[in-house]
């Protein structure tokens, strides 16, 4: 083999070894060269892969949009049918409510009862006994309105009673605050399970039907008592809210 060939191989090999050793010793000559020379290409390559991923995601989302659109159409049909049947049966129609956002200015906790103080906009009309919700579920009801300030009695208040039903089994009960939220009025044979969602039943005329209230955390059936002890965790964090929404009747 030619001598020149051996020299070239030696130089190439030495270059590789130098790069390798420099990197192992921490001086990173090779890595520095790599990042300086190839960064634009690498960015381009990453963008290309991102584009492919985005296209795949876009396709999946498009399919989902079509599926959801069909589902929505189906649900609209069901809604129309529901309204027609309710009309035939003479059900009282629940009118839609306006959502009035109000800013929370203070949250008071007196003897384990939570009161939320909010400030409303001057031109809005808010009356007592209107339900108040958060992003995830029920917060409470308007207790009183003084000037632009609203006093909200939350569900974490010993004076609050909320009529609720189990969304799965349609078992009915009354929610009370006793240091924690408890569901009362469910017999020992009542079909309630941990993880069931409770929604407002619409009875009592304060809270409209179907607002999420909480989730059942614990069910205790004591034979010495006549009803099941059910611990409920509210969907809303009642100790901290930035804004809440009053459901105003039109």
């Amino acid at each position, binding site marked *: *083999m*030619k001598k*020149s*060939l051996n020299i*070239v*191989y030696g130089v*190439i*090999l030495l*270059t*590789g*070894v*130098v*790069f*390798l*050793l*420099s*990197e192992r010793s921490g001086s990173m*000559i*090779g*890595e520095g*060269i*790599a*990042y300086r*020379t*190839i960064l634009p290409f*690498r960015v381009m*390559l990453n963008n*290309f892969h991102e584009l492919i991923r985005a296209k795949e995601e876009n396709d999946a989302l498009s399919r989902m949009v079509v599926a959801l659109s069909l589902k929505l159409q189906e649900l609209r049909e069901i809604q129309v049918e529901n309204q027609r049947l309710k009309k035939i049966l003479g059900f009282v129609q629940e009118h839609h409510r306006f959502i009035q956002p109000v800013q929370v200015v203070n949250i008071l906790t007196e003897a384990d009862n939570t009161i939320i103080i909010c400030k409303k906009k001057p031109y809005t009309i808010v009356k007592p006994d209107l339900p108040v919700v958060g992003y995830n579920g029920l917060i409470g009801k308007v207790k009183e309105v003084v000037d632009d300030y609203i006093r909200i009695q939350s569900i974490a208040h010993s004076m609050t009673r909320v009529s609720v039903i189990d969304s799965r089994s349609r078992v009915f009960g009354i929610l009370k605050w006793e240091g924690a939220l408890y569901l009362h009025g469910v017999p020992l044979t009542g079909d309630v399970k941990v993880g069931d969602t409770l929604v407002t039943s619409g009875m009592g005329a304060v809270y409209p039907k179907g607002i999420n209230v909480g989730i059942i955390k614990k069910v205790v059936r004591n034979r010495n008592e006549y009803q099941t002890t059910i611990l409920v965790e509210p969907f809303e964090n009642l100790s901290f809210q930035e804004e809440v929404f009053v459901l105003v009747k039109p």
Partner: protein
Amino acid sequence: MRIFIAIVFFIIVCLIDLAFTPYFSLFHIKPYAIILFLYFFTLKFSPLSALIVAGFTGFLYDIFAPDWFGLHIIAFSTFVYVEIALRDRVYWERMISLLFLFAGAFFIRLVVDVPFYAGFLKAFTSVFTSALPGALINLLAGLVVKIIIDAKQKNAI
């Protein structure tokens, strides 16, 4: 013309290996089509140009996988250097010469891929799950390419 075709193949091979690996990998084994390119390039072109191309290719591959910068340079240039050394002794027209391609592909994967596996056991396992099957794929691909080249040469005669 020959050099132009070689450049085109080089670009295609680099794109397969560096840019589109996820779309060309078989059972998560990297294609390393560049091994085939270097093998046939060394057979068809002058030793010096083959060695320089191997060094440059190694540098290019190191840029794209800079964790152990220099490994590709060493592996590719050694592979080509050994091929050049054997070129005078082995009758390359025979199919048996492709065994060198298998050995070379195995060596390159051993040098370039195995150090990335953390722990001895994983590195050892990767010899059988990545290096050997990868070399086998290279051998099969090389066989196909050799058959095509031989057929073209016969037609030319």
